């Protein structure tokens, strides 16, 4: 190792934030706005809003192979291609090179990573739902894992806070288990979805269909960003800033304070721990371009390197005090990996709407909130705990509808120039229980491009998930049939852990240092000036998309960090 010994003073900040994705961006904004000189370390290249979105305006015919994934991409991005949508020519530059960044699978695990400024906030699904006490109390209620150290009342005002800044569009529905938020105007349901909303309300007194709650600007402008233009090309980066990303939203806010230093190509290798004070003093960084090693120091460190990224850094930070990884007195570091299981549900076709169409490409779908195990006998799930919600949508089919038919010639061509029948599909997203034996481990044998150890994944769905999936599939069919669809078919596609890209749980929060890694303010129990506020902190998974909760927990933790610093407690 070439240790670059610049003066310690020059490399000292008030705060260090590791990672610049959804939660890192929020940590940077909050800490900078509260006056802390903050160093943001990002392992990948810089990405400037608008300037560095190379495909944002390209139509399919402008892209190689009309935007189809090629065999060549699969050579370097074999694992990143597993979703089927992440490595198309329009967006492959947002996903890592699997050869430079290997990991090992005891069981298949689809780990989608974006190493660049903004991380996966550029490509996220943008669905934004609040948790409720149904979720925060879940572990305690059914006796799984450990209890969350917080409840809805602890985060409610922080949800308000991040929603107002990020801009979340949605429809208030008054559900206790899916709390309403500070919404921008909802996007519109289309004609068929409105029909299904009515039929579901009429046929199922425990269920509703609502428009997805999504991090899009549905007003003219919002906090300096432009409104969504309904191009539905979000994953390429949005020139309008129409959806929330670190690049469009939180990082510019941090820059504005004059307190942020952003250092791309900075791979955090380890946390530096001082036994005398019982605190972390800084981090060791490998420059991704030069391989030189640097040390940076700060009073407070936020780990926001993504759930498994932050966990890796902690596991790799071994010292006399922490022989099994930083803050790992409980032995839970790397355990309790969760994700959402999905890829099961139903689809069908509906008559009677062929005189109707839509205009614009809505980057959002419908949501059917959880209706299982809400605490009443009636909602009790058959043979499983927790629940699931559906995401999906209705649309008119395009030319692909005719491929498997014998037709060709003039009539086919004329027919395919018109929109086809209306179809609707709904895909259920289910909660995964936290199992101690679902884990990631440090692998000293397999090394990455920078000669760092790597991760080995050993994660699987278990009986509760498989039993839940049966219901996810059956109820999908029941709802579409009740709504008047014909040729309703259920589906069950392969879905391995990781595919939901909601990996979480590997440094969980808890009340007891003996059974958890973090406390109720996301501080490492054993080194309180280190905060972990990405997916690693999650004690359970709920069934809703997690990013909004990461934002709220991060803003809350940053507030706590600054208060504690001012009291000289850190």
């Amino acid at each position, binding site marked *: 190792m070439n240790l670059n010994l610049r003066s310690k003073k020059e490399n000292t900040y008030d705060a260090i934030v590791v990672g610049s994705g959804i939660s890192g961006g929020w940590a940077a904004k909050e800490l900078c706005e509260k006056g802390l000189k903050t160093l943001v370390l990002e392992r990948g290249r810089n990405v400037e809003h608008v300037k560095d979105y190379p495909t944002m305006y390209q139509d399919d015919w402008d892209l190689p192979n009309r935007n*189809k994934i090629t065999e060549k991409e699969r050579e370097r991005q074999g694992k990143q291609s597993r979703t089927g949508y992440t490595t198309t020519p329009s967006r492959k530059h947002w996903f890592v090179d699997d050869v430079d960044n290997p990991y090992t699978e005891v069981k298949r695990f689809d780990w989608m990573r974006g190493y660049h400024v903004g991380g996966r906030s550029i490509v996220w699904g943008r669905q934004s739902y609040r948790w409720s006490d149904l979720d925060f109390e879940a572990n305690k209620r059914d006796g799984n894992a450990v209890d969350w150290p917080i409840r809805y009342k602890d985060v409610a005002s922080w949800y308000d806070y991040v929603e107002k800044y990020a801009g979340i569009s949605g429809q208030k529905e008054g559900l206790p288990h899916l709390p309403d938020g500070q919404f921008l105007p909802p996007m519109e349901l289309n004609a068929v979805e*409105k029909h299904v909303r009515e039929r579901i309300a009429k046929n199922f007194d425990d269920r509703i269909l609502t428009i997805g709650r999504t991090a899009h600007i549905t007003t003219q402008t919002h906090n300096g960003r432009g409104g969504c*233009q309904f191009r539905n090309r979000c994953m390429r980066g949005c020139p309008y800033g129409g959806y929330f990303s670190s690049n469009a939203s939180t990082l510019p806010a941090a820059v504005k304070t004059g307190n942020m230093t952003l250092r791309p190509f900075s791979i955090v290798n380890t946390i530096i721990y001082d036994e005398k004070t019982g605190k972390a003093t800084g981090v060791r960084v490998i420059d991704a371009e030069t391989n030189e090693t640097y040390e940076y120091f700060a009073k407070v460190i936020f780990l926001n390197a993504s759930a498994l990224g932050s966990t890796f850094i902690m596991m790799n930070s071994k010292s006399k005090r922490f022989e099994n990884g930083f803050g790992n007195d409980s032995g839970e570091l790397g355990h309790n990996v969760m994700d959402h299981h999905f890829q099961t549900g139903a689809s069908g076709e509906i008559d009677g709407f062929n005189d109707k*169409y839509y205009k*614009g490409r809505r980057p959002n779908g419908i949501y059917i909130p959880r209706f299982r195990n809400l605490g009443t006998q009636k909602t009790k799930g058959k043979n499983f705990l927790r629940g699931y919600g559906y995401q999906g949508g209705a649309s008119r089919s395009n030319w692909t509808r005719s*491929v498997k038919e014998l037709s060709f010639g003039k009539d086919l061509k004329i027919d395919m120039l018109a929109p086809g029948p209306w179809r609707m599909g709904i895909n259920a997203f289910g909660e995964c229980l936290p199992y101690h034996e679902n884990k990631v481990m440090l692998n000293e044998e397999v090394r990455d491009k920078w000669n760092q150890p790597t991760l080995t994944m050993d994660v699987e769905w278990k009986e509760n998930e498989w039993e839940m999936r049966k219901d996810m599939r059956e109820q999908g069919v029941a709802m579409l049939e009740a709504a008047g669809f014909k040729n309703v078919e259920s589906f069950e596609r392969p879905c391995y852990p990781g595919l939901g890209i909601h990996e979480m749980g590997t440094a969980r929060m808890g009340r007891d240092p003996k059974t958890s890694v973090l406390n109720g303010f996301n501080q490492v129990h054993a080194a309180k000036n280190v905060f972990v506020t990405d997916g690693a902190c999650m004690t359970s998974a709920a069934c809703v998309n997690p990013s909004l909760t990461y934002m709220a927990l991060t803003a809350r933790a940053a507030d706590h960090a600054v208060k504690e610093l001012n009291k000289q407690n850190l």
Partner: protein
Amino acid sequence: MKRRDAIKNTALLMGYAVSASAIAGLMSGCQADTKTPVDMWKAKAMSDTQINTLREAAERILPATEGIVGAKDVMVERFVDEMLDGAYEPAEIASFKKGLDDLEATAQATYNNTFAKLKPEEMDALITKIGEAAMAIKDEEHEVEPFFFALKGITLLGFFTSEKVGEEVLNYLPIPGGYQGDVPMSEIPQGGRAWSF
């Protein structure tokens, strides 16, 4: 609205000019070569006979009709050549080329002529034959797509994702600016054609 106009509008909307590098990226998109004249163009993944068979078969699947371009006009065969040269798996490539060779062999055996020189109704008869063969194969009985479906699928893909069809034949709306979920078909341009994407 054309793409260049769309960029201009973007700049107006945002109150700042979109950066030069973004526009450069936009203008230099890589795509199948549709500029080289037919007699100068050389396929990368197929023989001359295969290309000729493909060109004519694609045109029978999506023929030029009054006022609307056909497969040949948008050079579907050049798109297919690009796809075979990198986007397809070896087994798919082999199966596709064999399908074209079989079509040519059947043309020779049945009409004693090369496929590309057959009368339209003769081509249609042979395409119907491979279509019926494909329809008879059950999904679980094949590893690669039966040739007719592969041919029809890539012809439709090449046609409907071409610049000409995407911008001029279908309803092209690069920057919708909003979403309306319930629009009567009578208000959809061009007599109710589908949106481009």
